[in-house]
């Protein structure tokens, strides 16, 4: 007998040890349950982290644009509306009013990490007989690449465009039959036209983006789009990506700009994440419930098997409370040991999966994010589940009438 254990612990551990078969089976059951939970949680966390990372590194978290142009109904002095039907005006490409002031006030904010101006508009890229419509984005590469990690996606050439250079997507390059060093004639709707050299080719992993996106220097875009000295948007990253919407609303309220956060522009992304989280939560809850029922069932049987022992212990002067504790401890110990085995099982499954499920070229699908807190949390949760599941059997044991129990 371990001297440092109390009566309830000694009895609980002995009872578990004696019913080796039962204990083994239920531990197996708990381990599988916890393993599934650990595996699913880690996988989902990894998928979401990877997903979020991709979203966040391929677009600014907040975009400031000029406010929409609105037409006002024409009124006479006495308030009578002269033209009752008001058409929405066409949205010209406009420069942000006072953009240098806005930019410096953005850079002064403590919750904003990077602020950079850019110019965007549409254009036609022509090479030989082929032409494609593209969206050109004029950027200041050093700052912009801190928001969108384009250099990570460059597959040929370099991500440092000069004044007469352009970065294009892999699909556009293929359509135009161009490679790094080839020249494109880029013409915009406002009449600007320039010959630009392909400096780099990127693959953003999205066909639409690879066909349409093209990056040039800010000045190049300004002259192409006839917006000398102007910018059409200011892109921001913030320190807390999930606070982006609050910050955007704050900016929109103070400055004459339209501020949109990635949370609003990627509503579908959040729906997907939410659906994933919810479904996995449901699965985890039900796995947890079945584990709890398993523990309860085994302990109920154990109470029945040990009713004579319980009667004897009561006759010896054990209080109901002590008997209750014996079975609660058994539940907790089963939950805890099961969760240790389960964490091991889940960990092995994760690494096995990570090594087996590979992309066609053998690289990993996405990096695994395994937080130690996941294991601690699972162990804690399983232990609590065990104790709670032990409640019904324990109460039953504590309520046994010793006379009946001893008589059998």
């Amino acid at each position: 007998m371990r001297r440092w254990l109390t009566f309830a612990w000694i009895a609980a551990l002995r009872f578990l040890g004696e019913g080796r078969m039962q204990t083994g089976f239920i531990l197996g059951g708990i381990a599988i349950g916890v393993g599934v939970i650990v595996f699913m949680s880690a996988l989902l966390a990894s998928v979401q982290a990877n997903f979020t990372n991709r979203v966040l590194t391929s677009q600014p978290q907040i975009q400031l644009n000029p406010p929409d142009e609105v037409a006002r109904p024409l009124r006479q002095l006495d308030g009578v509306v002269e033209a009752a039907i008001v058409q929405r005006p066409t949205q010209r490409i406009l420069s942000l009013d006072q953009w240098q002031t806005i930019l410096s006030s953005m850079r002064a904010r403590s919750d904003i990490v990077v602020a950079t101006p850019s110019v965007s508009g549409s254009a036609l890229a022509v090479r030989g007989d082929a032409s494609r419509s593209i969206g050109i984005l004029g950027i200041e590469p050093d700052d912009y690449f801190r928001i969108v990690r384009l250099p990570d996606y460059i597959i040929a050439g370099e991500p440092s465009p000069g004044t007469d250079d352009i970065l294009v997507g892999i699909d556009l390059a293929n359509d135009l039959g161009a490679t790094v060093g080839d020249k494109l004639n880029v013409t915009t709707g406002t009449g600007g036209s320039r010959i630009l050299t392909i400096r780099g080719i990127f693959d953003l992993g999205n066909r639409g983006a690879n066909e349409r996106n093209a990056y040039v220097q800010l000045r190049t875009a300004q002259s192409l789009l006839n917006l000398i000295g102007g910018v059409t948007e200011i892109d921001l990253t913030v320190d807390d990506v999930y606070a982006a919407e609050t910050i955007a609303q704050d900016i929109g309220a103070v400055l004459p700009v339209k501020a949109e956060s990635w949370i609003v522009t990627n509503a579908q992304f959040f729906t997907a994440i939410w659906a994933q989280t919810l479904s996995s939560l449901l699965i985890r809850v039900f796995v947890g419930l079945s584990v709890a029922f398993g523990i309860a069932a085994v302990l109920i049987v154990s109470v029945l098997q040990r009713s004579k022992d319980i009667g004897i212990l009561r006759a010896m002067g054990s209080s109901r409370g002590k008997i209750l504790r014996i079975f609660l401890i058994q539940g907790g110990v089963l939950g805890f040991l099961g969760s240790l085995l389960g964490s091991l099982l889940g960990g092995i499954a994760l690494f096995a999966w990570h090594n087996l499920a590979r992309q066609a070229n053998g690289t990993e699908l996405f990096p695994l994010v395994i937080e130690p807190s996941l294991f601690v949390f699972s162990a804690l949760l399983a232990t609590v589940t065990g104790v709670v599941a032990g409640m019904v059997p324990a109460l039953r044991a504590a309520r046994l009438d010793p006379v009946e129990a001893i008589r059998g």
Partner: protein
Amino acid sequence: MAELLVLDGIRKSYNVGTPVETEILHGIDLVMKAGEFVALMGPSGCGKSTLLNIIGLLDRPTSGRLFIDGKDTTSLDEAALTRLRGHSIGFVFQYHHLISAFTARENVVMPMLVDRGRPDIAMEERADELLDQVGLVKWRDTRALNMSGGQQQRIAVARALAMNPLLVLADEPTGNLDTASAQGVFELMRRFNIERDTTFLIVTHNHNLAAQCDRVIELVDGRLTGDRRNPAINGVAQSR
């Protein structure tokens, strides 16, 4: 000798308040003195076990009062009864009821452990001493399950004495044993009675063993019908 146990008009009914209410014990009055070695006899179903459970504080009488060592137990709540039971009363049952998950020594330690919460050397020494007295100290680390019925019952006697109780209640302790083992267990209890002055109340069907007790009480249909002392044995008891 002080009165250890006083039963005053103990009645016990089952299914109280229903049409099938049955009274098992019809007003038992009994006085036992400290150090007595008493046999309780009677046909099956006469209420012997019920009486023993009431005296052992495992069950409450429907009416009547029970005094143990001068203390009225009728008004005690369950926690107090449990404590009193743990400290004052030892049990030996027909089917020994050792806890199979524990070794012989651990079974003897168990009442002390229940009382004090944590095991210590003193408990183990006490258990070894008792096991020595029942002649089983060699077997102390053997699981209770792996012993013969006679051995298990001797361990049960040692366990009943672990807390140095005032009273040991034995419900047909030899009913399940062969004659030789039965006599051995009986003599063991008798020896503890003589050496330690522990009071014993033993339910038995065995007239041979009953004849070796100080006093024989007979219970028939829930009433005490006989109460005689065995002069010869009494003489032995008095001569110590």
